[in-house]
């Protein structure tokens, strides 16, 4: 894993500094540059399509004017407000104006919070980011070794226990586990707080909970709640991959060369099963970042998941549109990074890509 991260950083280095070389001695040449440009163009088209879909979809779910005004507003104020927000224009004009403002970097203002949407979302993002990172990394670093062990000794008692636990993680709904966690650790035992973010400290001017001990006590339960499903998935993936590769000739040949089981597991098997793990890691990271809604609601975690739920119930159109577009962007970015990671992990893909 360490080697993979090193390669990853080398690769990221090559994106920003084309003079560097890709691992494997392959030059960062015109083909690679062409590949990046092609991906960028694809991303722009996808974003455009998404923006149209999101705009039309959000337009269809109700009239925000009732949210914007108090019920006792006069007809004159009502009409002035409609005009001010351009709500009297046909859909395509509104969309065009939206795109024009977007091109200037303006996502609009939240109806409810009366502040720029981008600022609003970015102010909530760090909370979700730290929660998600903790959950996804925790699930991966615990799930992959345990899954590999379960695949290595599939008939042992420990392997069966690990698998039974992973079935639990798969089949029990998140909200239920969240409630049980609160009931157990917050209410009954009183060890950990039931909700909120706790004390934060600033890093680059952004508040994070993970920088204080108190913050960790608030992070623990929601992160655990979020990670259980991912943990179960990582266990299954690692187990299936390990079982398969352990039976293959590559492992047998390594054994015939006298390599130890530990070397075989962490130098051969881990590298061979890394691709599906990285894929799931990326997808889980993206979807959790975007939709940690249930957990954030249960634990009153002030992240973007909670923001989007609130904005839907209050019909805060600009927040919804900007948020969904941000999510789409995030997925495109993650897919791209996962693709790059593939190339770092599997030299065969690297060759195919450069061709």
């Amino acid at each position: 894993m360490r080697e993979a991260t090193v390669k990853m950083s080398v690769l990221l280095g090559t994106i920003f500094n084309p003079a560097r070389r890709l691992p494997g001695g392959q030059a960062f040449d015109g083909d690679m540059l062409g590949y990046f440009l092609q991906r960028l163009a694809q991303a722009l088209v996808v974003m455009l399509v998404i923006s149209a879909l999101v705009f039309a979809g959000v337009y269809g779910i109700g009239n925000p004017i009732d949210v914007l005004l108090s019920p006792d507003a006069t007809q004159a104020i009502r009409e002035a407000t409609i005009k001010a927000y351009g709500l009297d224009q046909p859909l395509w004009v509104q969309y065009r104006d939206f795109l024009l403002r977007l091109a200037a970097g303006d996502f609009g203002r939240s109806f409810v919070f009366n502040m720029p949407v981008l600022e609003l979302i970015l102010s909530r993002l760090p909370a979700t980011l730290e929660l998600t990172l903790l959950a996804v990394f925790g699930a991966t670093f615990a799930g992959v070794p345990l899954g590999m062990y379960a695949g290595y000794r599939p008939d042992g008692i420990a392997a069966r226990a690990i698998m039974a636990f992973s079935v639990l993680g798969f089949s029990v709904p998140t909200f239920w586990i969240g409630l049980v966690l609160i009931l157990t650790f917050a209410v009954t035992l009183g060890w950990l707080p039931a909700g909120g973010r706790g004390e934060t400290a600033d890093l680059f001017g952004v508040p994070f909970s993970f920088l204080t001990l108190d913050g960790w006590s608030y992070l623990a339960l929601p992160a655990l709640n979020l990670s259980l499903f991912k943990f179960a998935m990582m266990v299954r993936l690692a187990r299936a991959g390990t079982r398969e590769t352990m039976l293959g000739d590559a492992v047998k040949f390594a054994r015939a060369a006298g390599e130890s089981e530990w070397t075989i597991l962490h130098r051969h098997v881990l590298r061979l099963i890394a691709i599906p793990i990285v894929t799931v890691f990326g997808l889980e990271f993206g979807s959790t970042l975007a939709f940690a809604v249930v957990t954030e609601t249960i634990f009153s975690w002030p992240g973007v998941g909670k923001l989007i739920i609130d904005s839907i119930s209050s019909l805060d159109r600009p927040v919804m549109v900007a948020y969904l577009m941000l999510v789409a962007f995030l997925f495109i970015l993650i897919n791209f990074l996962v693709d790059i990671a593939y190339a770092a992990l599997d030299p065969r893909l690297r060759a195919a890509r450069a061709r």
Partner: protein
Amino acid sequence: MTALLEVRDLATHFATRTGVVRAVDGVTLSLAPGEIIGLVGESGSGKSVTGFSILGLVDPPGRIVRGSVRFEGRELVGLPHGELRSLRGRRIAMVFQDPSATLNPVLTILDQMRLALEAHERIGKAAARARAAEILTRVGIPDAGRRLDSYPHQLSGGMRQRVAIAIALLNRPALVVCDEPTTALDVSIQAQILAEMKSLARESGTALIWISHDLSTVSALASRILVMYAGRVVEEGTVGDVLSAPRHPYTRGLLDSLPSLATPGQDLRQIPGAMPSLSDPPPGCAFAPRCAHAVDACTAMPDLVGAGGRGVRCHRPLGDAP
């Protein structure tokens, strides 16, 4: 001369859902230092399992159920895993049939060779690289220094198999089990590798067990041949004896099906029928149902009889006066 390897009555069975597969069932063979023997037989006769059993590399549900493997005076059956591991790659190595599956596709050649070196000694990066380059050159890989940084998919099948052979020879083992290493390659490459293996083995005094289903390949390389059928050795002898005067009807059948020995223009003769199921073999000689010479006595298992390394497991061996 003391033997390098002595396998006695080795039996490896697989406990499967449909019954016990007796893949190897009483193999006895011995090998002097530096000697090359050929192990031949058709597909499924137990050649690979014999090779894996010698290295203790049988995967579950397989298990060595009886017999002994003595190597350099040590009993390998039942040896603790750590000691066995330290012998593998250092004193006994193995090369597999399919070069595209044996190398790890996501590691460079150098990384894989370093892992094989580091399994047995502490060795610095530069020293490992030098050793790896040297051995690659010896197995006939041109421009070895540059090849070290390649990944397996960047090499041809023949080159990959040479790399696998190089990894097997890396720690100068006394014995290499070669499990059909040239079967997946085309004929000209096959001949090259065969010739190189022969001279490499002679130079370094390495003994080889060369597994093949092809008698002609083996005869180009080995001094002695063991013919396997259904998990047992049915005939053994020097290459000359076995090829010119086969005594087991099965060996005769194998020879008759060789293109190189057939009269031009004449159809190759094949052995009729197929090998019996190893989980439910017929009583007696396993070849009897396919044998033109079978008699009633063949329903009892014949012993491997003979002396001086020449033996046959048959009630009515060929060449005997009737």
